[in-house]
């Protein structure tokens, strides 16, 4: 899949300015590609109009998988594969299974959640991350506007919107691939 190459970047110094800018830029009809900040900015997700993460659903399903795997495994082992009497209890002594079931549930829920997160965030080891502006790891908030995604709008108009929203700089950024 070919990725878009040409972006306009708005550089913001202050998170409060950024939050208002996101609102203004979106209401002027410009579609924001992504905002990069050095630290999590509270409320940014909502201003960007992001939907709530569906990661908890994945966690629940993986947890359910862990529960059923653990119970199946223990029932199979203790009742059919190699029945053992432990502490004078039945072969299939359900209370004994709870600690292992709990651990498996937590393990699969957390591993599953991490895995799903990495896949959906494209965090694979061979991924080539795009650095829009190195200062977004230091003290600047970078708002990236995808030109191809805003083809209905003049590029100068976009720059003007960014500037009037409080950006301290407006830069262009292109990637080779």
């Amino acid at each position: 899949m070919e990725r878009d190459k040409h972006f306009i970047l708005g550089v913001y110094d202050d998170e409060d300015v950024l939050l208002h800018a996101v609102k203004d830029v979106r209401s002027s009809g410009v579609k924001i590609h992504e905002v990069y900040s050095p630290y999590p900015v509270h409320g940014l997700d909502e201003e960007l109009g992001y939907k709530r993460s569906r990661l908890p659903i994945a966690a629940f399903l993986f947890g359910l998988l862990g529960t059923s795997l653990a119970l199946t495994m223990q029932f199979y082992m203790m009742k059919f594969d190699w029945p053992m009497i432990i502490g004078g209890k039945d072969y299939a002594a359900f209370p004994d299974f709870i600690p292992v079931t709990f651990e498996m549930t937590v393990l699969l829920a957390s591993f599953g959640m991490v895995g799903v997160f990495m896949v959906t965030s494209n965090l694979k080891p061979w991924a080539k991350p795009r650095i829009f502006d190195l200062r977004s790891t230091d003290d600047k908030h970078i708002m990236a506007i995808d030109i191809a995604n805003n083809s209905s709008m003049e590029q100068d108009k976009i720059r003007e919107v960014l500037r009037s929203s409080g950006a301290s700089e407006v830069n262009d950024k292109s990637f080779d691939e």
Partner: protein
Amino acid sequence: MAHDVQNYNLDQKFEFTPALKKPIMTVLVIGAVLLGIGIVMAMMGGGHEEAAGEAGGHAFHWYERVFANLWINNIYFAGIAIIGVFFFAIQYAAQAGWSAPIIRVMLSLGNWLPYAAILTIVTFFVANHDLFHWTHSYLFDKSSPEYDSIIDGKGAFFYWPMEKGTFPVFYIARMVIFFGFWVFFFNKLKSMSYAEDGITDNSQWFKIRSWSAFFIIFFAVSSSIAAWDWVMSIDTHWFSTLFGWYVFSSWFVAGLSAMTLLTIFLKGLGYLEMVNENHVHDLGKFVFGFTIFWTYLWFSQFLLIYYANIPEESVYFLERLSSDVYGPFIFVNILVNFVLPFLVLMTRDSKRHGVFLKLVCSLIIAGHWVDFFLMVQPGTLGHNGGVGLIEVGMFLLYGSVVTLVVLSGLSKGNLIPKNHPMLEESYHHHI
């Protein structure tokens, strides 16, 4: 971010109007009527059981069941009341900001404490032989055929410095000291919190924080010992090392549910307009989290006893699980206090909307009553116990009286601590 100017009415007072009292009084009357019918039925039906009981060497009287119920509700509602004070103290010790508008709602649960103290002490003096096996003096008499060396070994914990089998000085002293200090700390924290309304600097907040820290230390010790004294000593032979925590966690979940219900109820009446779904969400998370904490302790206690299978330990669960009367309630206990809140309150939305919380919190308050029912009745009544009209009536009666006392206490002062230094922070609480 929208930093709108907030214009909340900080001087609002909760008005306990007759229209609000009416439904509570209705529940009270229903409870009293059920209790009355239950007692009359037990008195009339008691004749047969008494005859059968006498043949077995132990006569069962209808009033024993009333005493056991009094004890369940005394301990349960005293716990909910002290949890209100405890959670208030936690907010200060943790320097929590989010909870600033609702700390007085938490504290108001403590209004029941003085009544709980009197009721518990009076009930003990009236019903000690019917509730606590260890109060019988023949257990400590070596010449008696009923001499019990195990209880004799534990006797000093109740009777010191008096002779075993006489008057339980140490036990009564603990009860009086615990209730005395709890009521003292409640009054101290309450008066300091209300005194804050008249001053403008933060000095009062620091004072309350210090007192809260002292209270938490005292409560950490006293809640555990209270649980051994008031609940565990019913099954005198048996012991569990995490029982103090177990009773505390049961109280804590019920108390958190009561606070959450009270907050949602006040919001529904139009008070506490600064409390939004974010605050409710936090309360919901506390209920959800400590539900699991309670289950963890319940299961830890059960699993170790079940697995080790030492007779003097497993008798506690055998008495309950193999009983026709109590067996089903073990599962009711787990279903209502764990499975249901766990599944219903798991999602974010259900913790942010009052409907689910109202349902779950009400069920939890009833569910933890069942928990205390299972702790008290098998050891006091044996197979003569159960959930009947006396139980339901007494629970409704206590519940409505506690609600009346708590709400009328809440209506006496300002609802919101208007000079709390973190009030502004809590307006912007956002999760």
